[in-house]
């Protein structure tokens, strides 16, 4: 009888394709909006997640997230180093400055000053050059998007120069740093060099990056740092979440995307649900005839579920295909770099589609189950 169910489904091509396209459209809209939302909302923590050597970030107690920082005093570094359970601790500067290109174009840049001795915090994904080139005088590593902004149309190469605070910045490497929220270029330099690039600031120490000693839990070390120094200590994961939550609570981004996601959910639920329901109701007489002939309710439920699974599966597959093509296309586009289509989103939408078609089927099935087969005798 599965054959009969499928033939009934595809017989009305207009309805069949409208069902599939409605689910595909809703799936695509959900995938697109949720993935972009996740991509954008994880950008504020890009520079945190790019630091892979250290596990703990120590900061001023009032620091809420990584983009607004009140500098620590230099001796705070030594206080953190003295906390039991801290394997090592290094300084990190994170701030903004203005860089000017050779042709006069300028932009605000995110400047990361990494520890001179260990280069902890330096970018790990290098497209040109090496992080050890930071040893050179005035050296800095710029991210690909920044390079393309300052040197449009030129091949990625080291040796170009910028100007910051009336000082030469020698580009010694190009990194594949994660895109920041503000879409500013990201420059990495040595901690000692950063002071020259940003101008006179009494304190430069934005963060202390620390590593817990072997066998000491990160949470425990954070607690000890906070108790000993009075500073705030967060693990990389916690600090990334702080950044996410700050933007989540203080911007209209979640509302904006939320509305689109809700609309996609409504469209994805109501249109396919209603169309599938109407489809079943229009076939009610035929289901009645099948019941009269001797097809069991169980078999009819199976037929309807099969129909729902086929349209749901086809629509979902089409929607995911379009989404995958979209994100494959935009992956290397600078403004949307780093915004990917997480498999968790794909899985989640699959569950949503399953729920939608399941709900639509249940309503339809109910109509068929309560249907008196005697209805077939009513002209």
């Amino acid at each position, binding site marked *: *009888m599965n*054959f*009969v169910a499928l*033939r*009934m489904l*595809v*017989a009305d091509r207009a309805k069949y394709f409208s069902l599939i396209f409605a689910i595909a459209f809703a799936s695509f809209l959900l995938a697109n909006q949720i993935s972009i939302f996740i991509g954008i909302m994880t950008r504020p923590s890009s520079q945190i997640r790019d630091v892979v050597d250290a596990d703990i970030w120590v900061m001023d107690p009032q620091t809420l997230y990584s983009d607004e920082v009140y500098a620590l005093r230099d001796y705070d570094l030594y206080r953190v180093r003295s906390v039991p359970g801290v394997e090592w601790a290094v300084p990190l500067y994170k701030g903004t400055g203005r860089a000017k290109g050779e042709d006069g174009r300028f932009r605000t840049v995110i400047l990361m000053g990494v520890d001179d001795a260990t280069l902890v915090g330096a970018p790990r994904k290098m497209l040109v050059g090496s992080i050890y080139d930071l040893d050179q005088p005035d050296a800095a590593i710029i991210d690909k998007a920044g390079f393309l902004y300052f040197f449009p149309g030129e091949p990625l190469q080291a040796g170009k120069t910028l100007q910051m605070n009336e000082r030469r910045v020698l580009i010694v490497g190009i990194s594949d740093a994660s895109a920041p929220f503000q879409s500013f270029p990201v420059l990495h330099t040595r901690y000692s060099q950063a002071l020259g690039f940003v101008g006179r600031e009494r304190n430069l120490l934005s963060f202390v990056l620390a590593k817990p000693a072997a066998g000491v839990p990160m949470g425990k070390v954070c607690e000890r740092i906070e108790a000993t120094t009075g500073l705030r200590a967060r693990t990389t994961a916690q600090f990334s979440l702080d950044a996410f939550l700050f933007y989540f609570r203080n911007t209209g981004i979640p509302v904006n995307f939320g509305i689109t996601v809700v609309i996609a959910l409504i469209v994805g639920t109501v249109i396919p649900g209603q169309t599938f329901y109407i489809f079943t109701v229009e076939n009610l*007489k*035929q289901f*009645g*005839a*099948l*019941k*009269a*002939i*001797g*097809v*069991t309710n169980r*078999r009819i439920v199976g037929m309807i579920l099969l129909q729902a699974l086929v349209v749901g599966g086809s629509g979902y597959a089409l929607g995911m295909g379009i989404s995958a093509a979209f994100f494959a296309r935009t992956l290397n586009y600078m403004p949307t770099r780093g915004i990917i289509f997480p498999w968790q989103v794909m899985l989640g939408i699959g569950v949503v589609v399953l729920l939608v078609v399941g709900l639509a089927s249940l309503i339809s099935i109910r109509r068929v189950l309560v249907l*008196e*087969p*005697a209805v*077939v*005798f*009513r*002209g």
Partner: protein
Amino acid sequence: MATDAIAVLSRNVTKVFGRGDNQVHALRGIDLEIRFGELTMLVGPSGSGKTTLLSVITGLLDASSGELVVLGRRPDRLSQEELILFRRENLGFVFQQFNLIPALTAAENVAVPMMAAGVKRQQAVARGEEFLGTLGMAHRAHALPSELSGGEQQRVALARALVHQPKLVVCDEPTSALDGRTGHAVMELLSATAVRPDRAVIIVTHDSRIFDFADQIAHMDDGRITALEENRKNGPLTKSAAVYEAAPAQTDLGASQMIGG
């Protein structure tokens, strides 16, 4: 008459819809015997209870009271699953609006009862094609219902009702959606192929043009059998084919006149 020759035995069967003040007595004590090898017609005006009686006989509705034996079984003593199985194995249905599945070809529609019984599709469709051939429809086996005329659709419906060799064939207004000539042709085919010594045929109709195909006619009104004509084919009321075509089409008038008569 021996009871083994009786396909359907109804004793004082009633059917009441609704409760309290909203009660509707659709059947008021039906006594009827339907024999194997005969074509029985239930006739009467709209609302007389003939379709309800057909639904009760086929187990699609439960009787409110009375005793009903169908092919030696009592539908009221069968579970829903047993009833479905009973219908699938023993009953063939012909509906007023044919109720063919528009997405399936004629042969596939005929194959549906067999597929419902678990026969593999290819085997069932092949049997459906073969059976259509016996009804002169082999050349239309691969046509969709929308490509068939009303008469052809009813022939397909007839094939679907007979393909699994049921012991009881029930037809609900099989000619009312057809013109007089086509309706007559369908009835000729039905009486030629469906009526067999081991099978009973029940037709609900108010189409007076086809009454002469009946062995027995139960005239119904207001939930009761008001008159019963037996051995009709051999009786004086037999009409020729020419009379069917001349008779007024599909009105209750003919039936009422006969009841009155």
